């Protein structure tokens, strides 16, 4: 699979799975969403790190399986201006893994994903 950004060795992890047509929600900056809404924060600043969070996870895109959980994050100051985009991911769009809680997924995005499929469901 061709990844949208360079990933470290052993990334995605071996237990990451194809999305299998599931729908996810993502906090996007742009309305309508653009390609830049679906990349990791490492693209913006590769040197940014957080203790205990692997480079692999920081190279993933956060998506949510539950729209309400995703929407609840808009109560945070840093995410207040985001809009919620709904995306249905095919197996060619990358690999996903449930991480850090029941509704949060890390998505390692492939070059196949088309940002134009994103639909804004909540502003």
């Amino acid at each position, binding site marked *: 699979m061709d990844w949208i950004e360079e990933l470290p060795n*052993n990334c995605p992890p*071996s237990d990451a799975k194809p999305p299998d047509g599931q729908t996810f929600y993502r*906090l996007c900056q742009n309305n309508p969403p653009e390609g830049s809404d679906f990349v*990791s*924060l490492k693209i*913006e*600043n590769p040197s*940014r*790190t*957080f*203790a*205990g*969070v692997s480079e692999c996870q*920081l190279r993933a*895109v*956060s998506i949510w399986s539950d729209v309400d959980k995703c929407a*609840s*994050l*808009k*109560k*945070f*100051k*840093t*995410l*207040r201006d985001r809009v919620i985009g709904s995306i249905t991911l095919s197996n060619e769009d990358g690999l996903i893994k449930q*991480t*850090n*809680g*029941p509704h*949060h997924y890390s998505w390692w995005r492939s070059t196949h994903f088309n940002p134009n499929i994103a639909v804004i469901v909540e502003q």
Partner: protein
Amino acid sequence: MKRVLTINRILIFNDFPQLFLAKDSLGVDYICLLSDFASEEYSYLCVGVSKKVLHSFLNGYRDLRSIFSEPEAKEWWTTKDASEPKILIQLLEIEKVPEDLLPDVGFFFNDEQPDELIRNEVVEHNNVIVHLSLSDENENQSIPIDDLGDFAKLYQLMVENTYKKAILRSELKEKKSFIVPNNFTLRAFAASPGSFNLHLKSEANKDLFGNSIIEEGLRMIDQVINSEDNEDKLIENLRSIKGHAISSYKKLLEKVINRKVSFKYKWVSPASQEINKRTISTDYATKVVELLEKKEELTEEIKIFIGVIMQADAEKGGWRITNEEDGKDYSGESAGHLLEGITLETVKYKLTCQEVIEALKVTEKEKVKYVLTQIEEVK
């Protein structure tokens, strides 16, 4: 004024940690919220919280905003670097927190939280918590102490065996370094009524998201103990823990049947809000034991030794080999007359053995026996 905190657990992650817990050197908890995030730098706003407030927040009863707008200590702290586990926070010289740093009203960490007790224990001990629950036919809220000891020991044995199996199958590097008692041993710290509930905690290694390595074994147990009616599927699940893990599971099932007890457990880890529960009723145990008796090979664990045989008694079947792999001596017994005609001390052999862990009482250590089933010369 500055303080050093140790990052303890990431609560909310969205591309980057949004909310995390940390502790100071006196054990006081802090909750830190991402308050600024620019391309070049970021900062978190932190406040100290009592255990009561923290439990209340984590159980979904307390709004995040109130924790930051009205902190118990009226002190607000900030940090601009969380790249290392120990972070330096600086006191903000403010009387009131600016509105633009506060989250909106209505952020509850979790709004659908039964099982409050086990969740509080997870916060308190910051590792996996397991509740074992035992009830007899009459739903007595007590249990003979021998039964309690036996069930606890058998469950612990199953956790140990499935944990080892999960680690050996994983893609971890230096797997053996993870197979240490601290990672699979559970410690009892409380009991509660209902049925009889024994509260256990793990002290296994964990990451900052709160994923504890013992979960590898616990998940494998969950996978095996399911309500699968399809016999083929059930066998497939059982086969996934073939060997000692199945052997210990079978002993647990037999205990459920013999003592006419319903055995339940639930566990939760700091990383997940999900409560994992399973029940073994006497009916379920009977069904699985009958299946295991038809498929005896599932309980077999095969061990292979390669080396020179130092001692052998063809008549009585005893033998001792120095195993090349670890340089240790192993001894055992032999089925049939497999040892006849072998050469001692100079010829290398491969011994294929069945490894049997003998039945144990609560206070005894497990006793491993090797039964030779096949021998061949290695050239």
